[in-house]
């Protein structure tokens, strides 16, 4: 067992963890934050997406012990009190979900993605900063699967949040 300390949604949290525990299991099983979901547990579905030091990452592929001292934001920490994050507002406005299982990951991924900028695999000129067209949003959000197929509304919601 290893003692670690990290900031989660703004609060300092300590834990005594087996080295095998993932950041996802630390959040869900040890800290009671069940927003981040365990979908595939292989980094392929994106349901576990959280922000680590402000950057979106798959919590299932992150060893908790390797993230000692980091600052983690989960879906529970996206809103500012009762004020929802612009991405959350846009998902509500566009009905960008059906069952909701992938939604925490989609929200954290979109929140992280909007701060990234730069080019993507579909950008014509990789040295230029393109606008967030629907094609750009689809490419940049490809690490998040939605089994209900709510993609049309997810793309619309992320587009609106990008303009907000």
């Amino acid at each position, binding site marked *: 067992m290893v003692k670690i300390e990290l900031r989660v949604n703004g609060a300092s949290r300590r834990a005594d963890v087996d*080295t095998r525990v993932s950041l996802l299991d630390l959040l869900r099983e040890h800290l009671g934050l069940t927003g981040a979901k365990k979908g595939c547990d292989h980094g392929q579905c994106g349901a576990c997406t959280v922000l680590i030091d402000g950057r979106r*990452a798959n919590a299932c*592929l992150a060893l908790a012990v*390797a993230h000692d001292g980091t600052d983690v934001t989960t879906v529970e920490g996206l809103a500012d009190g009762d004020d929802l994050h612009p991405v959350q507002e846009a998902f509500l406005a566009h009905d960008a979900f059906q069952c909701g299982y992938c939604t925490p990951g989609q929200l954290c991924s979109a929140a992280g993605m909007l701060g990234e900028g730069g080019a993507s695999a579909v950008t014509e000129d990789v*040295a230029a900063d393109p606008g967030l067209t629907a094609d750009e949003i689809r490419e940049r959000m490809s690490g998040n699967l939605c089994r209900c197929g709510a993609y049309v509304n997810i793309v619309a919601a992320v587009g609106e949040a990008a303009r907000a």
Partner: protein
Amino acid sequence: MRPFTYVRTRDAVDAVESVEAGGPDAMYLGGGTNLVDLMRLGVATPARLVDVSRLPYDSIAAHGDGLRIGAAVRNSDLAAHPDVRARYPMLARAVLAGASGQVRNMATVGGNLLQRTRCPYFQDVTKPCNKRDPGSGCPAVEGDHQNMAVLGRSAACVATHPSDMAVALAALGAEVRVTGPDGERTVPMPGLHRLPGDRPDRDTVLAPGELITAVDLPAPPGGRSTYRKVRERASFAFALVSVAAALDVGPGGGVRDVRIALGGVAHAPWRAGAAEEVLQGAPADADAFARAADAELAAARPLPRNAYKVPLARHLIVHTLQELLP
């Protein structure tokens, strides 16, 4: 998952010592995007993990006429670096073509080079696999091999190397800086990765305990460069075939310089030396591009269900070079 001890060291010397002391059961940990998954699958069973992701190799800096990229630089930071985007578009495109935004934020340059094949038999511990369990056999030859190698494969292994970034580094002639128990050395790309032969368990030429610390890019090739990747879905999938290419055309319309490397077709990123040789000084047109592709692919030995990769690679080489014409 097998229990393991976790070690974080202050510098590379301590990291190398720690892995050396741990013997064959010790491994370096970068971003973990492949290794943690392989540990969960039971494919990788380290008893000691030495975390090198926080070593001071996380910057990109000018180096001679090129760039030095630290091994701990995240894939997303590499693709976003202004000099990489402006001077090495082939590399920026290759990195952006790999994985997802989340994975690129976690994955390191060193780890990208050392990721293992995604061959379904390698990743399934209930199946034989000469790479995972030498001598146990290769079910892919008779089985699921649609996505497997057509160049440089052996009777023992038909797996492909999954990295996109490594294909661009092979075309650019990058040098991989390594430190280990016997000191430092550099390994020129594409020489880091091996063809399988009768030792498919060895992906690279690195000796036990050796640690990648940086990748040095030479000055970018003249002309224009790009990376094109064909896959089964539009995003977040490994290459069926990919091409990293740079083309410099002289004032008379002849090829002044050309670099071509292929991904998804071999156990290692495949520098297309035969194609480059055909094109050197040849007219830069579709006929010459096709002759060059044919010269390279003459060595292809496809299996029944991956023969499609040969014409796919041919078309991809020709179209990519055409796209690079001035």
